[in-house]
């Protein structure tokens, strides 16, 4: 399986990376872990004249939990850097769920969180939970830096708002309110090395048994990862009774617009959304402390 030739450049600063991309925006691509790009190049689905690797840019590697509880994921932080991070396991269990569900060890050691979002496939495992947490993307271009809410980042399958010379430098997750619990659940054909047929994530804020706030998001059941706002509203102000959870599942399924494909039928995906929504809300609430 051989690839067509390309130049591989390894800048050591973000500004240099932007400059390299800006020289030939159409012929270049950012190269992070390469787990998506190399598959496309090998299959001949894409060709890039120049790959601009971010690997040698020191400052992009970090994963930081700040004192106020916010999380910053650098652009080249791998999925396993997240999955093995003790603080994330404790404070953002749902982000750990999502990381552990992606592919298998070898891929998690290489694939980046930012690359997963930038690739923008509807089934991207890191997307629903980061969307539910209200994450933002820090984007640098040759003309400056901007912050884009993840909610506005996805445009369609494999399509984002990124311009050719844009580099995502970090993903910021705001500090969760006291009493927050989160979870991410997905169903694939098998546990490892399979993309989800449907995925649901939830972030809830609990006060004793009452849910004060709930955000539900879906993956693999629409052209992009999406918010299921109505599902969250059903839960808000209520105890998580069986009826409330079932109703939330129905609302979530109404937000979904799945397709039939080789992994699952539309109908099966809608059923999965209902079941996963109930389970993920319960799991998030069980984890909430406060």
């Amino acid at each position, binding site marked *: 399986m*051989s690839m067509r030739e390309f*130049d591989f*450049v390894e800048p*050591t600063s973000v500004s240099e990376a932007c400059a390299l991309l800006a020289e030939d925006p159409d012929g270049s691509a950012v190269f992070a872990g390469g787990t998506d790009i190399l598959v496309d190049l090998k299959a001949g689905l894409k060709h890039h004249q120049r790959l601009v690797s971010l690997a040698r840019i020191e400052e992009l590697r970090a994963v930081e939990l700040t004192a106020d509880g916010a999380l910053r994921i650098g652009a080249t932080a791998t999925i396993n850097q997240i999955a093995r991070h003790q603080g994330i396991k404790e404070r953002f269990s749902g982000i750990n769920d999502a990381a552990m569900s992606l592919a298998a060890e070898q891929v998690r*050691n290489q694939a980046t969180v930012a690359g997963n979002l930038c690739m923008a496939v509807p089934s991207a495992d890191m997307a629903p939970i980061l969307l539910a947490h209200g994450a933002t993307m820090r984007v640098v271009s040759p003309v400056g830096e901007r912050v884009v809410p993840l909610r506005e980042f996805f445009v369609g399958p494999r399509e984002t708002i990124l311009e050719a010379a844009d580099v995502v430098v970090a993903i910021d997750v705001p500090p969760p309110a006291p009493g927050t619990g989160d979870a991410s659940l997905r169903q694939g054909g098998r546990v*490892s090395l399979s993309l989800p047929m449907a995925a649901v994530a939830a972030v809830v804020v609990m006060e004793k048994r009452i849910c004060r706030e709930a955000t539900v998001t879906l993956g693999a059941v629409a052209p992009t990862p999406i918010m299921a706002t109505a599902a969250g509203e059903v839960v808000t102000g209520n105890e998580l009774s069986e009826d409330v959870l079932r109703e939330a599942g129905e609302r979530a399924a109404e937000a979904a617009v799945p397709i039939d494909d080789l992994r699952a039928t539309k109908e099966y995906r809608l059923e999965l959304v209902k079941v996963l929504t109930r389970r993920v809300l319960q799991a998030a609430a069980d984890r909430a402390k406060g």
Partner: protein
Amino acid sequence: MPRKIDPKKEPDKGVTRRGFLGSVGAGAVAAATGVAHRAEAVPEITEPDEMVQVALRINGRTHRLLVEPRWTLLFVLRERLALTGTKVGCERGECGSCTVLIDGRTRYACMTLAVEAEGTEITTVEGLLDGEELGEVQQAFVMEDAFQCGYCTSGQVVAAEGLLRANPSPTLNDIRHGMSGNLCRCAAYVHIFKAVDHAAELKKGGRQ
């Protein structure tokens, strides 16, 4: 060796390192400490000076060689360095037969470019020998009869080594999860899981 030039491509496509440095401002040149790698279209007739010099540390030894940026580590290990213990399977990150350790962590060599691996410590199945003897994980695979045709075995052994370095006392569930990036077409899974468990004990100096 003569170099074939494609006149349609040559003038504007492809950016040489020199071309890049000439095309950006002086400030950027000063900042451009990054490495630029240039590949050629037809591997057999590419002139060595159009390839990139890399130094790869493999099993404790440094190999200096010329590579094309599009060459995977898997290709370089097998076809340039004759380290054929690392096997070719799917070549798209889905089977695990090409598993190697990079800085102690498991990676698919088919999904890693050789140029990316510069500056890292690479370990292949050959590097898991204990002198002339089999290493602990290799021994455990023999003792537990953890293969049939053996094609997936070197990948399984390296994956097990990576798993045990990260988690010296894995549960059966940790093993199943940790080894799930390696397929075995002969489905020797039960024996493979036993071998990983056995290897964990051998590494701690236990059960022979």
